[in-house]
């Protein structure tokens, strides 16, 4: 029997805000000693009250705007209740009706909504005790929920990778799965018709792209085998065991939660003025897909090269800087991608110089070099001062400036020596 695969995603992203969602504690908790980043608010102590973090709200809306979501004019927080030892208040402040972002799409895949909520603490189990670390409790968490529009594992994989990239471009989060700043859940079911089947399996506990791919594949196989042998599949939550490479049932529908949502009375509904939306929209940088198109047009690179460059914003920027010094676009891309020259030459000018070397072009004369060095030193008194104050690494900048003046034809050793010599003598 051939089944249509139907997958919807729930993706959590921990934004790189300074403070947690509703208090002043530090958001970044990676590697911190347990329970050192807490206060009455994120510990959920009696009497404590939440104050919503506007930076987190802005980041959520910016993600929505980048993906074409509608921004709610008035957005509300809700209390979502469930009992778990790591949930300090016995409810999570989350959103339900009127989340910050509604709709939108990425790579043609429809997004249902994007909302903002707080994270729970972390349970640490050992042989005979369980401990709670509240450092993560109350951290801001952006949740994106897609429509059930994925029919293929490869679609899922390219979507989540592209989302990770968009989030990085927007400086919302580094979205590292290994560090838990990006977490994925997939709702998977199989159908024999166009209609949604009457069950879905929620797949949890996935902490890398690799495991996501494997887990979905394993789960699809399990469901296919089950349906083929005439079994009925139930609504349930399953986890993925990396060791056995199987999924296992965590919870079935029978004991599914009733979250008893109601609007959070401690936070008045948040009005989003049009001016704020305009401002946020104006600050959306060039997104990966736009960059790919531009790179293709401007630099005429192969799509493989473009994808590699664009997948790392820093590299893409380095590439463009180098291209502003030399028109050898393909060579530059090649040296970056295949030789990692961007690591070897922290300043793009150095790499451009290397290209001239490789092309065995003549270096500029000692005299021309000296003049260029002099001019650069005069133009950058602050840099010279900080060099003299012991900041040796600023020499890279000076070298870059000289090479720029010499159109990349400076002899690196000569340039370096002249800079050191002239600073010592004249400055």
């Amino acid at each position, binding site marked *: 029997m051939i089944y249509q695969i139907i997958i919807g995603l729930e993706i959590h992203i921990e934004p790189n805000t300074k403070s947690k969602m509703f208090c002043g504690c530090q958001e970044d908790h990676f590697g911190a000693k347990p329970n050192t980043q807490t206060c009455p608010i994120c510990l959920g102590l009696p009497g404590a009250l939440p104050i919503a973090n506007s930076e987190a709200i802005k980041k959520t809306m910016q993600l929505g705007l980048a993906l074409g979501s509608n921004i709610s004019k008035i957005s509300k927080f809700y*209390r979502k209740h469930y009992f778990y030892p790591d949930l300090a208040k016995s409810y999570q402040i989350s959103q339900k009706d009127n989340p910050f972002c509604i709709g939108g799409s990425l790579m043609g895949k429809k997004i249902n909504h994007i909302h903002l909520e707080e994270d729970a603490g972390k349970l640490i189990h050992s042989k005979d005790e369980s401990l709670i670390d509240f450092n993560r409790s109350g951290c801001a968490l952006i949740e994106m929920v897609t429509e059930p529009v994925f029919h293929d594992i490869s679609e899922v994989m390219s979507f989540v990778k592209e989302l990770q990239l968009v989030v990085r471009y927007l400086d919302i989060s580094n979205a590292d799965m290994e560090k838990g700043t990006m977490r994925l859940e997939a709702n998977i079911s199989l159908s024999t018709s166009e209609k949604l089947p009457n069950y879905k399996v929620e797949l949890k506990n996935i902490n890398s792209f690799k495991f996501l791919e494997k887990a979905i594949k394993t789960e699809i196989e399990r469901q296919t085998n089950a349906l083929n042998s005439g079994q009925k599949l139930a609504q349930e939550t399953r986890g993925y065991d990396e060791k056995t490479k199987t999924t296992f049932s965590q919870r079935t529908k029978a004991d599914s939660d009733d979250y008893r949502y109601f609007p959070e009375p*401690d936070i008045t509904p948040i009005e989003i003025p049009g001016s704020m939306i305009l401002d946020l929209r104006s600050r959306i940088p060039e997104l990966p897909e736009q960059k790919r198109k531009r790179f293709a047009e401007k630099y005429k690179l192969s799509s493989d090269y473009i994808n590699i460059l664009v997948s790392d914003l820093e590299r893409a920027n380095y590439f463009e800087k180098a291209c502003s010094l030399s028109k050898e676009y393909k060579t530059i891309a090649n040296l970056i991608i295949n030789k990692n020259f961007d690591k070897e030459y922290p300043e793009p000018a150095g790499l451009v110089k290397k290209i001239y070397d490789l092309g065995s072009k003549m270096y500029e004369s000692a005299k021309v070099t000296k003049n260029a060095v002099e001019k650069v030193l005069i133009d950058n008194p602050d840099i010279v001062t900080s060099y003299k104050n012991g900041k040796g690494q600023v020499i890279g900048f000076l070298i870059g400036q000289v090479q720029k003046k010499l159109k990349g034809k400076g002899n690196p050793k000569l340039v370096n020596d002249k800079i050191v010599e002239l600073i010592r003598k004249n400055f």
Partner: protein
Amino acid sequence: MKTPLTIKETQEGLKAKKFSAVELVDSYLAQINKYNKEFNIFLTVTEEQAYKKAKEIDRSNFQSPLSGVVVSYKDIFLTKDVRTTAGSKILESYIPPYSATSVNRIEAAGAIPIGKLNCDAFAHGSSGENSDFGVTKNPWNKEYVTGGSSSGPAGAVSANMSLVSLGSDTGGSTRQPANFCNLVGLKPTYGAISRYGVIAMSSSLDTVGTFTHTVGDMEIMYDVLRGEDGFDGNVKNFVKPEIKKRFKLGIAKEYFIDGLDAEVEKMIFEVKKTYEKMGIEVVEISLPHTKYMVPVYYIIQPAEVSSNLGRFDGIRYGNNRNSFGEEAKRRIMLGSYILSAGYYDEYYEKAMKVRTKIINDFDEAFKTVDAIISPVSPTPPFKLGENTKDPLKMYLEDVYTTTANLVGIPSLALPSTFSTSGLPIGFQIMGPRFSEHALFELGRKYHQEIDYKPKIAL
């Protein structure tokens, strides 16, 4: 020594060296030691803290607004390093790591904290009888309740165990005990005073209440307590408005219901006459949704209670869930049911819609009148045990008081007179949001006219 009954007299006495702050503490502590066993008002007495602060005050020049004012707190105000129980066994041994904004503000203004006060567990009740630490008895007559849930705060001030006290008011928990103990009680505008550090009962209704002997003292307390603190996002700053010269008051015809005690009803008419004698017009108004007040309140309030009490799940705070009393359990069950899937729309959402209608009633009324006079409790203080068998009857105690909480407006409860059985009765004046200062003016006028003098029961 005879302790003064107002902030002004206290501070004049301190400045004139008639007595020291330490002597004031001596005197209040003596009263506590003498009567607390019998009346069960204080759960924790902070003697050491009180003397330490009193000595500081004695070294000062008494210039802070509350210099030397001895204060006590309902035990739902968190006090750093001092046990805070909320009147419940659950928190029997809970020592908070931080203090409520109100506590910090009052103490920064020079007040001397003397202890923590009994109350209905988690502020659930109208008589003090739901405290897990035993009922507080009314200092005016120990066979009667003080009212609740701020039973201790009313008891403490009327028994002269502190000059002022802080309570809370979610559905009348300050105004009703103030009335039952011959005190001035204020339920402020929702959003005037920070709730930070006050153990939450019903978050959209909770307010910080204050007990004093006079309206003048209430104004001083209010001005110390109000304003943004950066921790309660619903609090707003406001500038004290110009007070009107001419007032017009309203009395709602819907307030004269079955069950309104004849003596209370008579008193309301006396109040009306008193204002009219001063040339203040009192007209009949209509608040058509009055009959929905208690039902709406008893949907929203337990829903929020069930949410706020969830954290006492037995993992932290010492005692497990078996330590919840009957009333807390009743409200947790009611609230969980109200919020559960399928019933949310039918109950909670509908109640919120009616709440909007009730708010509209008041918006309309305040177009024609500046403030509304109303009973606080339908009856004078009742006897211990009289209402405990019938929770519904106890809930009806709240018929006049829940209004101000549902609408979010301020209400000032004023002592008026004594019933034929010698127990205090009084009324309340409700005004638009942030009209506290106008209510103080109306309260002062009334007390001047009837020549009100503060009295202590013991």
